[in-house]
């Protein structure tokens, strides 16, 4: 194999693929990135066995071939090369080295055979559809904070993507709170199986979406999902489990409505929760006619109260929430009219932007 590639092109490709490579792995080849020529381009591929990222880059290929080399090391080297440099990659047949030459720099990297590189073999995708990158990004932004990190409930360790009526919907929950976002079902998604996309894949995808404004081609099967974003393809296994029947826990009849400006609410929660130094403390919301009093009482730390003007006409009540959960949700809301729909101090509460019916959050209260 022998090729010459522009440094910027190489850096971009490596930047996209290397982040799936685990820094510590017991299987040596998984630390590597695979380079494989394909006509006038070269394909980069990295995997952690759960997911793989493939990127195409333009190169001047003089001798076709394939090889794998340590991904992070190659990435680090390329990062340190000067802007605009030409890089020559060359592997002598039967040599377990890849030489990288650029200007006066010369590196020889330990190579492993490309034949041994694992292939995720994406298989048949039963459904495929197109979706705007910004929509997909929004979907992730608004839900991923609620993904559970508790490994024993593995089926909650991802975002549940599925169809609901005429919508494509994403849901994440850790059992304490739930986030749900939906948008109009794209053509081709109808009838697709509900899939749970693992957290790491979600984060990879989010990262890849940052560089693009175009649309994303999504392929779905029972076991895998594939995202084609420009020249990058991310394929991932899915979490094999059934997502709980979340719809049951979204209250439909909460009749006490609280209207509040998100900015005011967010900064008030942020201030009072300074006292709630640890995760075991609640922010108490006391509701009265058009008045919301936020308070935190930490027997070891002190106490804090703050009053804000709100719209509230129902009977007075009190309810406590985990400060961090409130902040997480407030971070997703945008409008000046956020609606809380409450029932009582022990029941789930629904939060949403009044102007935006597509996103909704459910929060379980805390009790002392």
């Amino acid at each position, binding site marked *: 194999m022998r090729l010459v590639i522009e440094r910027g092109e190489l850096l971009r490709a490596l930047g996209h693929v290397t982040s799936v490579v685990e820094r510590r792995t017991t299987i040596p080849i998984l630390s590597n990135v695979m380079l494989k020529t394909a006509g006038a381009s070269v394909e980069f591929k990295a995997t952690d066995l759960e997911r793989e990222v493939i990127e195409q880059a333009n190169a001047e290929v003089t001798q076709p071939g394939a090889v794998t080399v340590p991904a992070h090391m190659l990435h680090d080297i390329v990062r340190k090369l000067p802007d605009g440099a030409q890089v020559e990659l060359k592997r002598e047949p039967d040599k377990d080295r890849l030489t990288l030459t650029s200007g006066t720099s010369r590196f020889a990297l330990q190579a492993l055979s490309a034949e041994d590189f694992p292939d995720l073999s994406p298989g048949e995708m039963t459904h495929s559809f197109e979706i705007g990158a910004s929509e997909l990004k929004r979907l992730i932004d608004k839900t991923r904070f609620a993904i*559970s*990190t508790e490994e024993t409930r593995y089926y909650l360790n991802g975002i549940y993507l599925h169809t609901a009526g005429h919508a494509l919907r994403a849901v994440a929950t850790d059992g304490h709170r*739930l986030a749900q976002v939906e948008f109009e079902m794209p053509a081709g998604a109808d009838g697709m199986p509900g899939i749970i996309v693992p957290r790491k894949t979600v984060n990879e995808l989010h990262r890849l979406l940052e560089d693009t404004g175009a649309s994303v081609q999504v392929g779905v099967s029972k076991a895998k999902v594939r995202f084609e974003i420009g020249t990058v393809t991310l394929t991932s296994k899915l979490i094999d489990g059934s997502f709980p029947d979340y719809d*049951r826990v979204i209250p439909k009849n909460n009749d006490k409505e609280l209207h509040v400006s998100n900015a005011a609410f967010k900064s008030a929660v942020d201030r009072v929760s300074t006292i709630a130094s640890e995760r075991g*403390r609640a922010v108490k919301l006391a509701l009265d006619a058009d008045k919301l009093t936020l308070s935190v009482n930490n027997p070891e730390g002190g106490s804090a109260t703050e009053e804000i003007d709100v719209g509230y006409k129902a009977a007075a009540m009190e309810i406590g929430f985990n400060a961090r959960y409130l902040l997480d949700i407030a971070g997703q809301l945008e409008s000046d009219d956020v609606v809380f729909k409450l029932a009582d101090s022990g029941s*789930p509460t629904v939060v949403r932007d009044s102007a935006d019916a597509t996103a909704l959050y459910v929060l379980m209260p805390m009790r002392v």
Partner: protein
Amino acid sequence: MTIRQLSPETINRIAAGEVVERPASVVKELVENAIDAGARDIDVVTAGGGLSLIRVADDGHGMGPTDLALAVERHATSKLTDDDLFDIRTLGFRGEALPSIGSIALLTIQSRAHGTPEAHEITVARGAKSALKPTALNRGTCIEVRELFSATPARLKFMKSERAENQATTEVVRRLAMANPQVGFSLTTGERASLRLPQAPPGTDGHLARLGRIMGADFMADALHLSGEREGVRVTGFAGLPTLNRPDTAMQFLFVNGRPVRDKLLVGAVRAAYGDLIPKGRHPLLALFVDVDPPEVDVNVHPAKVEVRFRDAARVRSLIIGGLRGALDQAGHRASASGGAATLAAFAAVTGVQGASGSASSAQAWSHSNSQSWRPSRPVHAPTGFAEAMQAPLTGSFAGFDATSADTSPIAHAPAPDLLDRPLGAARAQVHATYIVAQTQNSVVIVDQHAAHERLVYERFKAMLATGSVTRQGLLIPEIVEVGEAEAEVLADHSMDLAELGLALEPFGTGAVAVREVPALLGDTDIQGLVHDLAADLLHEGASKRLRDRLEAVCSTMACHGSVRAGRRLTGPEMNALLREMEATPNSGQCNHGRPTWVELKLTDIERLFGRR
């Protein structure tokens, strides 16, 4: 059948049956007599497990001929003044031991009263007293017992092996030696020199040195001194750090007015005082000396005097608990010194540094410097400006942290000097995603992040419990946990207690429970695992344990589930926050399983490893 008066021999033999159960009992009576006689050196020799020979020689005040003749008479004692059984200041008081022994063996007593020129000897052969005769003896008293139990063959049948008898004898002498550090002891059983205990210098150090000879060098390194007095009851002694523990109570000693006793009171008090500092099924090492006005205690409740009865047992108990708690709180987060010593020893073994003696002495230096510098372990809140100081150098340095090796996460910049002054220092790196390495002005501290965090979560739980403010996070979807019938039942039985700790659950069909709320402190936690562990805890603890103990067990299980696991990468600020919290938390020196949470290597010790000293 006719009723007849028992002969004096028979009476003595019956008494002997109570006083002298086995050879060790004879040794006990004789050594006690020697101690009562003010001996400074006591030499004990036995042969044939004590059946063929027991000889106890002392350098006490001895007896003149008249006393000697009286000593072997029943109920003859020089010790009970005014016949007041409630004012006993000596180990002996009944005047029963020597005649009892004389009735079941060949007893020879040689004695020379202090300041007199001649010594006398008397023998009692299975109850038959001989005449006094002069003998040669430099000083004190020498008592020989041969052919023990030859007059009561039934007893002989019950004797255990020679080894077992030797062990019992050694145990007896040890206990008496612990209470009398200024007396030198030597014990030879058969061919073996079992004990050689030189006179210890007076004072606390001397006493600890004696205890160390008997309870082990670890105890000496890890013992806390305690001393307290209230209303005529005085408790002194030494208690081991909770990290030094063993599976039985064999190393827990109680002495009442210098008398070794076995009393359930001690077991209970120790458990109450150490409480959750020590893992289940493990026991600390300690030796406590209770001194009360003789009228406050009845020692005449057991023929061999191994039990006593306090007039006010509750006061003694509370004083013991108070003394132990005080000492333990003072020790704060001081971890086991043997941890550091063991670390050094391990290093020494690898590097081939001249090991044994060096590491032993460093262990002492370690514990010493430790005990002095570790006093203020109570939550001293960070002085103003500290938070800024903590963040300033670190947050910056973590940006470039990506590029470093995965195994070690170092903090590149020099740590803030005021962090170096803190007891646990400034975090410098995390290694193996499990240990935090921190630097102080003169040492390196290694912290086990999981163990430490577990303790902190646990202490937070307890604090919340104490203020009655455990918060519960509701679950959107109740978690159903299949546990088995017995487990589901015991969980349901304790659902009130569990709710108080933040876990709300209810029965769900047979053999399952539905969890509705979890302790908020635990965050997003493994509920299944937690509930299974709790059920197992509750089943095994049974109903016998006090509620508080049960709650603590539950807390500790919950804490374990809520802690940072080994293997989690921590950022610099996270590491420093953990260290600061450890400093502010009492008892953070060991995790709930009694393992140390951190060890410290003094620079001087490290220098020694490299042969720089």
